[in-house]
Structure formats: structure tokens, C-alpha cells
């Protein structure tokens, strides 16, 4: 095919100014140096001893760093130069949907009209926030095909556990004691962990040779003690569960509920909806699908949407539009209660709504189409280098296998991933899902250009040649990054979780 521009878009793997070490902020500290400035208040300056009984006071001074503002800025700016990020380059980390985070959405959240509002202020004074939440809930319900939603959960895992508690409340309201939740062997680790915290036992079912749920195996474990099933669709190998209607019917027939793990929702926006597939409970990862930045590991937001028959159990209080057109907090009739200290990660919610409004219904559909296009293009482009674990069309991500490299050159998936970082791209997800040997899971996302995808493919082709000709180069990669491979075993064996432990 014609490439309409040079392949390109590689980040430098080395930090901006070489690969020297950075001292910790405590190592930079000089007693008596300071950066802080405080407002002049004219309040009588009583001492702590005058204000608080001595029995409550710490006799010692707790040491923090003592640095100038200039050193503070230099330190954290240098740390930022030792960090890969979406804003630097492609981040094809499978299952994580590391798409470009529009700056506009951040600017919306930075508005003091949203971010300087106290969460306990009366509803009459926060009508804008309540309306924003109601509008977002409505749009998330349309995207998922559900009836109502809670915005409280802070992340996907929090959404999962919330969903399982909703499942429990639904069954218990019917006097129905159920014990098990079914999970495919390809599921994210948060699923089984959440099931345990939800008070259920996990029943794992195998995937079939297509990488999909084995319907017969599922039917064998279904019974009246099954509370429900948790599925990701497309699943964690990036494939659409084509028999989802049959799966839903089988689970519903025994009185179970279907939980949709929204980790891969980006693949189906505006194309097909969980509600239409038969799901009863859906969580979304706004920090994946709706492009809110991941913040180096958080914050996220994990709203949970449900079918109408589960709405009465949703966490509360919920922002609600009243008959007179005003907004107030309303507790659902049989609410499971709060799952967050306040109303959820509100600033993340605002960013997601801005993203949805910019795209609209048509734009969200294009997002899914282009995400799936990019993943399939990359899968096909790499077919002679890294074959797909399942040779069929994928959705928004593709799972490739490096098992031939391991057999022929003793070069593992991890080695390939590490070498890719040296060539200016973030690594794909490795060794997940667990059911694929030497798995490399690429999720290019819809925001990477063809030129970037081609450059990434060329980098992987170069690595394939290196694996055959100079395998140690790949096995020892990366060396041009701020640090080379780290001794993870030593970190666990000689645990140093703080500066104070380091000095003991």
C-alpha cells in the first residue's frame, strides 16, 4: 500500500539530558531551606501548646524535605524526563486503551466553576454539577444500552465490586441464595478478586480453540446456585464473543445475571451495546474508553450501568432531575449504599462528558471503527514477524505470540517488549492473557497515525532480525533508557519501601 508520509513518530528512549541518576528529594534537602509562602491572615499567633493539650502533641518534629522552589521544580521536572507517557509517543499497551487524551477535556476540568466546589455544599448551590452528572449518566446509558447508572466507583475494579454487590442485592431481594460467579480463564485478575470480595466463589471455565467462551463448558457449570457470569466482550484476546446471545440465554435461564467488564468497550462504541447483547450490569473505565488521562496509574472512574430491574439497588445518593426541572440528591429505594466518600471522581467524570460531547454519537462510532481498523492493520502487517495467537479478525487489540522466537532464539516476549521501548515505543502488554504462550498484546488505539503504526511495525521487524543475529542485544535490552533491567527479586527480598528503610 501507499504510505503518504515517511514512517515516524518515535520517542527518544533516553532521558532528555543523559541517563544519570536523580537524587531523592530527601537527599537534596538542606536544613533551614524552604519554598513555602502563606497568606497574611492577622490571626493571633498562639503556639500549638496553647491550642492543643500536650498529651495530643507529637514531641518530635516529623522531617520532610527542605528545598528551594527552584530545586523542587528541577527535581520533579527531571523525574518527568525519566517517564514515558502517551504525550511522548505510541503506547500500545493491550487492555489499557492508551489513546491520546485531548487537552480540551483537561481544560474543562481545570475550570474553578467545577474544581473549586466543595462536595458537601448544598444541592441548591451545586446545580451545575448535579446536571452534569445526570447528563453524563444519560449518555453512558445510551452507549451501553442500560437504564440507569452510578458514577461513584473510582476505578474499574471498584465498579466490578459494586456490580457484584448489586447482583447480590438483586438475588437476596428475591430470597434467592446463590454462591458462584462464573469467569472465563482469560479474564482480568480484578474479576476473580472482586468476586471473592463480593462474597461469591469463582468458577473458572476454559476458552475454546477459537479463544472464545466454550458454550458447552459453560452449560455444564450452570445451575441454580450461579449468581451470574462476568464477561469482557470483546474478550481479553481481542475477539468478539459471537455466541453472546446464546450465552446470555443460558445464564438467564438459570436465573443468573450477566456482568459486562467494560475494559474493552472502546471496540464497540456505537456498533453494538452490552444491553442489547443481554448484559444486566456494565462497568465502564472512563480512563480508557473516554480518554481521561491515566495519571501514571490513576485516577480513573468506573461508573456502573444497570438494566431497569436493578436500578433500585444502585449506590446513592444519586444526582437526579426532579419534576420541577431542578436537581437534587436522591437515594435509590433499596440502595446498597455509598461506595465512595463523596460522589466519585468528579473531575474525571467532567472530562469524560466533554470527550463524549465533542465526539457525539457519530464520532464515538468512528472511534470504535478506527480502533478496530488500526488493530487489524497492525495484526496483518506483522503476520510474518509475530503471528496472531488466534488467526481471525480481531477487534480493538490483537494478541500475538512470540513462541517461535523463544523456541528458535531463546528470546522471550518480554525481551522483544523491552527492546521495543529502546526503539521509541512503549511496550505492549506481555504474558496476558495467561492462556496464550509468550503473549504480546497490542492495542494501538484509534489515535495513532498510519505512519506511527508503520514505524512500530518496522521497529518490530528490526528486532526480529536482531533476535536471530544478535540475540543478546535483545535479551539485554534496554540499555539506553534511564535505567536498564531492574532486579525485581532483590526489591522483594530486601524490601526498601521508604528512604528510612534504605538507611537502616
Amino acid at each position: 500500500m501507499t504510505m503518504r508520509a515517511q514512517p515516524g513518530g518515535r520517542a527518544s528512549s533516553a532521558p532528555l539530558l543523559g541517563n544519570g541518576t536523580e537524587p531523592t528529594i530527601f537527599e537534596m534537602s538542606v536544613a533551614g531551606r524552604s519554598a513555602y509562602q502563606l497568606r497574611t491572615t492577622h490571626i493571633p499567633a498562639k503556639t500549638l501548646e496553647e491550642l492543643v493539650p500536650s498529651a495530643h502533641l507529637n514531641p518530635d518534629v516529623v522531617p520532610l524535605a527542605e528545598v528551594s522552589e527552584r530545586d523542587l521544580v528541577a527535581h520533579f521536572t527531571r523525574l518527568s524526563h525519566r517517564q514515558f507517557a502517551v504525550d511522548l509517543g505510541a503506547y500500545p499497551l493491550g487492555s489499557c486503551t492508551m489513546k491520546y487524551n485531548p487537552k480540551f477535556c483537561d481544560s474543562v476540568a481545570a475550570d474553578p466553576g467545577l474544581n473549586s466546589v466543595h462536595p458537601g455544599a448544598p444541592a441548591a448551590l451545586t446545580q451545575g454539577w448535579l446536571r452534569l452528572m445526570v447528563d453524563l449518566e444519560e449518555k453512558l446509558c445510551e452507549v451501553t444500552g442500560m437504564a440507569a447508572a452510578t458514577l461513584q466507583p473510582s476505578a474499574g475494579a471498584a465498579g466490578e465490586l459494586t456490580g457484584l454487590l448489586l447482583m447480590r442485592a438483586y438475588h437476596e431481594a428475591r430470597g434467592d441464595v446463590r454462591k458462584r460467579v462464573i469467569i472465563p480463564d482469560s479474564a482480568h485478575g480484578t474479576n476473580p478478586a472482586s468476586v471473592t470480595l463480593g462474597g461469591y466463589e469463582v468458577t473458572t471455565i476454559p476458552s475454546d480453540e477459537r479463544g472464545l467462551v466454550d458454550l458447552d463448558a459453560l452449560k455444564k457449570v450452570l445451575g441454580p446456585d450461579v449468581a451470574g457470569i462476568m464477561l469482557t466482550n470483546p474478550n481479553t484476546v481481542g475477539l468478539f464473543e459471537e455466541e453472546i446471545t446464546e450465552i446470555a440465554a443460558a445464564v438467564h435461564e438459570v436465573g443468573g445475571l450477566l456482568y459486562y467488564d467494560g475494559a474493552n468497550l472502546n471496540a464497540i462504541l456505537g456498533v453494538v451495546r452490552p444491553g442489547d447483547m443481554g448484559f444486566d450490569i456494565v462497568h465502564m473505565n472512563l480512563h480508557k474508553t473516554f480518554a481521561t488521562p491515566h495519571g501514571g496509574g490513576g485516577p480513573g472512574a468506573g461508573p456502573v450501568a444497570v438494566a431497569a430491574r436493578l436500578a433500585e439497588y444502585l449506590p446513592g445518593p444519586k444526582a437526579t432531575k426532579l419534576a420541577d426541572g431542578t436537581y437534587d440528591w436522591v437515594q435509590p429505594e433499596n440502595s446498597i449504599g455509598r461506595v465512595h466518600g463523596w460522589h466519585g471522581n468528579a473531575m474525571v467524570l467532567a472530562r469524560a462528558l466533554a470527550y463524549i460531547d465533542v465526539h457525539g454519537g457519530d464520532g464515538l462510532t468512528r472511534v470504535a471503527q478506527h480502533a478496530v481498523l488500526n488493530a487489524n492493520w497492525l495484526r496483518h502487517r506483522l503476520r510474518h514477524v509475530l503471528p496472531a495467537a488466534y488467526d481471525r479478525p480481531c477487534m480493538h487489540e490483537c494478541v500475538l505470540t512470540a513462541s517461535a522466537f523463544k523456541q528458535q532464539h531463546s528470546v522471550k516476549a518480554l525481551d522483544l517488549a523491552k527492546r521495543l521501548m529502546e526503539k521509541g515505543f512503549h511496550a505492549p502488554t506481555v504474558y496476558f492473557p495467561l492462556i496464550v504462550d509468550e503473549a504480546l498484546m497490542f492495542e494501538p488505539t484509534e489515535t495513532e497515525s498510519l505512519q506511527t503504526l508503520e514505524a512500530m511495525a518496522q521497529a518490530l521487524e528490526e528486532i526480529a532480525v536482531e533476535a536471530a543475529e544478535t540475540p543478546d542485544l535483545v535479551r539485554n535490552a534496554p540499555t539506553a533508557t534511564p535505567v536498564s533491567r531492574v532486579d525485581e527479586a532483590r526489591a522483594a527480598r530486601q524490601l526498601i519501601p521508604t528512604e528510612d528503610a534504605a538507611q537502616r
Partner: protein
Amino acid sequence: MADYLPHTSEEVVDMLDFLGLSTLDDLFAHVPAALRLSQGLDMAPGLSEPDVADIFAEYTSANEATLANLVCFAGAGAYDHEVPAVVKMLGSRSEFVTAYTPYQPEVAQGILQAIFEYQTMISRLSGLPIANASLYDGATALVEAVNMAAGSTGRSKLVISAGVHPHWRETVRTFAQGTGHELVIAPLVNGITDWSAVDASDAAAIVATYPNYLGFLEDLSVPKSLATQNDALFIACGDPVAAGVLKTAGQWGADIYVGEGQPFGTALSFGGPYLGLFACTEAQIRRLPGRLVGETVDTEGRRAFVTTLRAREQDIRREKATSNVCTNQTLMAVTAAIQLSYLGTHGLREVATRCAQGARYAYDQIVALDGVSAVSDQPFFREFAVITSQPADLVLERLVADGFLGGLSANSLAGTKDGSLADPTHTLLISVTEKRTKAEIDSYAAALAKAVK
């Protein structure tokens, strides 16, 4: 048509052609046709950024309770502290903002080292040796703490002070529906916890808080001995601004410290994202929820940082994991490390002292008013509760006219059924931070004098 997609229409055709397909719809041919949306989503078409900014201006203008409009005396877990420009700017660096979880340490030393520094700061402020890389917020951090205690003791009874923030207690109650934990609430008498009223035998945890949500300081040696006598873990929740100035959780003998880290550089943000602080003893480390960063070396012997003790976590232990936490609040933790380094040893102490000075000055003005009386004569730190002759919600409404978010009504947090207060509908919680001036407090007291009539 506004979006962030790079492909030209010619490129889309080329790419489809490369795949042997003719339309974008063909990519979804394996999705059963009966399930597919034939008309797309029932949602307005996309708008340009300036158009969406106009929509958002309607939201922001409908929020009367902004700091620009109202001087804030509300607290109860969310505080109006100064966030200096340098902290905002460093915390907004896109390398921190747009990174993922540091799974590949070679290209994530920035986040990893910042978290290591954060863990050190929280460990010192809590007086406990282990602090994790953050949890969602204070309420959900407490849920993880009680789960840790239940796992450690093999028991399910939780004895919790009614002085713990009502929302936190409610959140613990919600998650107890799955874990089967039994909650026993120790009531408040004269503003502080009456531990003598509860049976703590077979308890997994004793949960106390300092200061409590009414602002009062409690003697934590009482719940500590209760925990010791009953072989339970002692969980101390605490205001992190007061943490280094007041006795630390570790000095009180706590096994676990839990706090809400919003005061360390995060705006009020309508309640989130905030920052769940979590620290514990070494004895509990194998049950630690969430991520932990440790120091190690790279193959060249250079200092390096990496997430460690990973075998606790959900992606490896699955249904046997100690917690399901994956995504946390890393950006808020990094911001907290920046804010605490900006303040330094003396700055944090100064902020805490000024909060206490302001609260005492406000208290002295306010309890002298007709129609206002103290809930208790117990010592307090940076916030306090008063009884108002008029309902607190009405008082707050009147204060808005004078330009004040005058606090929070206890009723709005705990509801009337909470039982820990004699009269929640007439109880007003007032908080003072280092931002409040004498002039603001004087005007507030004058407005309150009118509002309670």
C-alpha cells in the same frame, strides 16, 4: 465532524484494502447482525471544542458554591487549602498525567521514584514503616484497612467509633454486604467516643479517628488498649495536615493508618479524585492492598525503583488476592509528594498551626454569639461543631446571602438516623484553614449572629 482521529479518507481506503475489506462496517462482519445498531447511537452529533466549552459554561455558571463566590468554612474531609502555582504546574506535567501504571520500570522511573518519595512522607507522617502507593480515597482506604484486619485476625466483627466520618462508615457498611463483616458502632458522648458502651470481644478491628468528624481530639490510648485486650488490630484514621503535629498513628500504637490526602495539593474537586492514604506495620505487609514501590538496582548497579511484593496483587493471585485494587490515585500521590516538598518540615507544621489558630479564633468569636453553643468542651484542632438555635440548613442558606459557605450541617452528612448526635438538624460543622483571614472570620461571625436569629 470534530474528533482526534488522524487517518485521511484515502488512508482509510488503503488500510481497508490492505485487509481485503471495502468498508469500515466490514471490520465488524463477525458481530451478529441482529445485535448491531442499525442507526448508531441516539445521541447528538459531535461538536467542536468551542461549542462544547459553551455547554460547560452553563454547568459552571449554575454552580453557586465556588470559592470565587463564597468564602469557605466547610470541611468534614474536604478542605480549602492553598495549592500554590508551582504545585499545580508540576502536578500537571503531561509525562505524569498521561502515563500508565509503571509496569515497565525502565521507562517509568519518574513515577516510581515520586511514589517512593511519597511513601516515605506518608510513612513518616503516620509513624508507621510501610505506606502503599495510594488508594481511591479515605473512605475506600478504610474498607481496605478493615479487610486487612479481618484477614489478619480471621474475624469479622468491626468496632467503629461514631466519630469516624459518616460517609466512611456507610462505605464500610456497603462493602460489608460482600465480606459479611459485622459493624458495631461505638457512640459519641459529649463529642467523643464512649468505648465502654461496646462489646469488643472477637473484634477484628477497633477503628478510631483523630480528630473525629466533629473536630474533637480523642485519647486514642483507650481504643488502643481495647484492641490489645481483644487481640484486634487498631486502625487509626486521621487528618493528614494534623498528622505530623499531633501524635502520629504509630505513636498511639496503631497497626494501620488511614487518611484522606486531598489537603496535600488537590483542589476541592467536588469530592474527587482525592487520595486514600494507607500505612501499616511490617507485620501486615503481605496483606497490603494496592501497589508498593521498592528500591533496588538495575543491571549496571544503579539505583532503580520498581513495584514490588507483586504476588499480593489481583493480576497474580486472582481470587486469593488481598484486594482487587488495580488503578489507584497515583497522580494525586505524586501531587502530594510535590506539595509536601514545597511545604517542607516547617511549612506543613506552619499550615497545621495556622489551621488550629484560625479555628480557635473563630470558635471564640462564634460560641460567644447568642443562639450558638458548643457541642462539647473537648479540645479540637482545625474544625469544630456548634449547636445553632435555627436549623443548620437554614443558617447555611442565610449565610450564602452574605457570601459564605458557612460550614456543613451534620444532618447533610449523617442524616437524622445516625444517632451519634443529640440534634443533627441543629448541628453545624465549621472548618478553618490557613487561607482564612481574621477579617473573613470576623465578617463570618457577624453574619452568623444574624443567621441564627
